[in-house]
């Protein structure tokens, strides 16, 4: 079977800096794949290329949605990529700070609904139904994420951890089959991180594939099915968590000797 996401020879240059260097990477359906590597290795850049925020200098981004044919993501605008079924979160949280939690999630539904200006003005039956459905679904997602009781709070007033989870909720609302998470555990304490672990597992069990960037090794090792390691834009290793944990190159560049303290 075709992998869900197949990246071939992805290269990204910023002026003189090569942030990604012919990267090959695959994600299969239903997998949690982690992308790790030292700071500045190019992980976030990879997400940005994939979601159309940056234009890659070279390489192919191939997506094969379940039950559909393969398509190239190169050159698609970010909103089109999301429509294809890829949703992401941001390393530096980018919520809509002055909108409520519920509204933030409702925005996620935008690309799956179709009410237009005239519908908005005349509020015909279809629009009303659609709007109701948006609210219902958004609340459902919030409940799953555990933010339902805060639905009426402004996003900017949420604690950090809750904001991170809200980003995930918002991404889920776009009905993706694949979720890209950029350091979801950053700024969370160990307690919250373990809750996040459960959350991501649930999402996977709902049938989504997940690509995860994270520096919290405990989380990565417990969650991932497969790990890619980047350094200076190049892939230096890939494998199962066990393989990676013992890979000397990875230990040297990234993990360091005694990993348990991290």
């Amino acid at each position, binding site marked *: 079977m075709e992998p869900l996401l197949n990246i071939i020879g992805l290269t990204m240059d910023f002026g003189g800096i090569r942030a990604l260097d012919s990267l090959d990477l695959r994600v299969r359906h239903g997998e949690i794949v982690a992308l790790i590597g030292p700071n500045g290795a190019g992980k976030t850049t990879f997400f940005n290329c994939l979601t159309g*925020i940056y234009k890659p200098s070279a390489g192919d981004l191939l997506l094969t949605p379940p039950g559909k044919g393969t398509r190239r993501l190169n050159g698609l*605008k970010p909103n089109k990529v999301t429509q294809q079924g890829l949703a992401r979160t941001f390393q530096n949280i980018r919520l809509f700070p002055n909108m409520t939690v519920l509204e933030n999630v*409702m*925005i996620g539904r935008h690309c799956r609904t179709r009410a237009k200006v005239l519908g908005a003005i005349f509020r015909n039956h279809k629009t009303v139904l659609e709007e109701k459905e948006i609210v219902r679904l958004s609340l459902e997602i919030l409940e799953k994420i555990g933010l339902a009781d805060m639905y009426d709070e402004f996003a900017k007033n949420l604690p950090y951890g809750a904001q991170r989870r809200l980003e995930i909720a918002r991404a889920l609302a776009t009905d993706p089959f694949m979720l890209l998470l950029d350091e979801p555990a950053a700024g969370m304490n160990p307690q919250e991180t373990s809750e996040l672990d459960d959350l991501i597992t649930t999402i996977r069990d709902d049938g989504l594939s997940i690509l995860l960037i994270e520096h919290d090794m405990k989380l990565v090792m417990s969650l991932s099915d497969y790990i890619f390691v980047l350094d200076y834009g190049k892939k230096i290793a890939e494998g199962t968590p066990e393989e990676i944990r013992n890979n000397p190159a990875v230990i040297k560049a990234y993990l360091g000797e005694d990993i348990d303290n991290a």
Partner: protein
Amino acid sequence: MISFKDIQKGLLVSLWFVFLTFPLMVIKVNPIERVITWRWQNMGWVALGSFCYYLATKIYKARKLARQQQIKLGLIKERVDWGQRLLSERKIYLPVLIVVGLGFLIFPLVLSTYQTNIMVTALMYVVLGLGLNIVVGVAGLLDLGYVAFYAVGAYSYALLNMHYGLGFWTVLPIGGLLAASFGILLGFPVLRLRGDYLAIVTLGFGEIIRLILENWNSFSHGPSGISNIPRPGFLGLHLSLGHSITYMYYLMILMVLFTIFVVNRLQNSRIGRAWFALREDEIACQAMGIDKTRTKLTAFALGATWAGMVGVIFAAKTTFVNPASFTFLESAIILCIVVLGGMGSIIGVIVAALILILMPEYLRAFSDYRMLVFGAVLVIMMVFRPQGIIANVRRTYKIPDAIKPKLSRK
């Protein structure tokens, strides 16, 4: 409340202002006759004025601080913002609404034609403000050339009427559509510009439209404008001035209601949400699958539509148009209405439009000083109420009853 130190500081402040205003306020030269007029008395006025202003702000701040202390100590309850209260408590807003509504309804019957006339102008600005509010307040696109679309509307009525004899009611929608197409025309190339770059380009566009109207004589009659534009007809009757103004008044009331209805519905729709989100964070928006260009264009075109329609009404009301009515200052005033009202808040925009447009009219008594006061009021309002008269009200959503109990706070 005012300490000796405050007085001391106040004196220093007034000394500074005396220095500051010295050349302009005290000296008046006639460079040709080579005479100098010294107006020493102005120095005293400046000193007194600045001293009082300083003390006033000091007292204001001190009282605010004292309030906060008292709130903290639990002596008094926190006062809810009156704007919010007005809107959120049915007990308050319903009667207010009825009284205001009735007031507007009988306005032309009890007050003079002149009062009605300036109220018509004010109502026109209400609609303009609400239209620009879609663009600036809701979608966050700073448009400094809004007046261009207003001009498009006004000239479409003037020209279509002159050349083809089309009537007011025919041109009203045409003007709106024409303005919308101009909005799209301009929007396509420039909407990817960020923030203030967009502002200057729209400003430029506004100027371009005005300059074309000014220079292209064979098309627009140039600076001398087009006169004798008919007022809107009423079942083909000929109306006297008073009646026709009253008629315009009710027409504007309907227009305002219609605008409020539409803008309100738009804001509370899928599109409206997308606009708000776009204002907050464009990149996140795109990542959520929102087509940035298209959404912005919609806002731009819709905003322009209202300007176009009010333009038609404007032409009908003044019965004369020339390019001088469509200067940058006009755009600036409409923008002031939006920001002063509170970005994205409908009631706020209405209140601000009424204040800003009626104020200069009622300040006619101080004719020399009115623009001075107008400018000062803008600054002071912003300094003391930067979020606008009525800060944006949050939208509420109907929560299905089935889920409600689960949402109650743990």
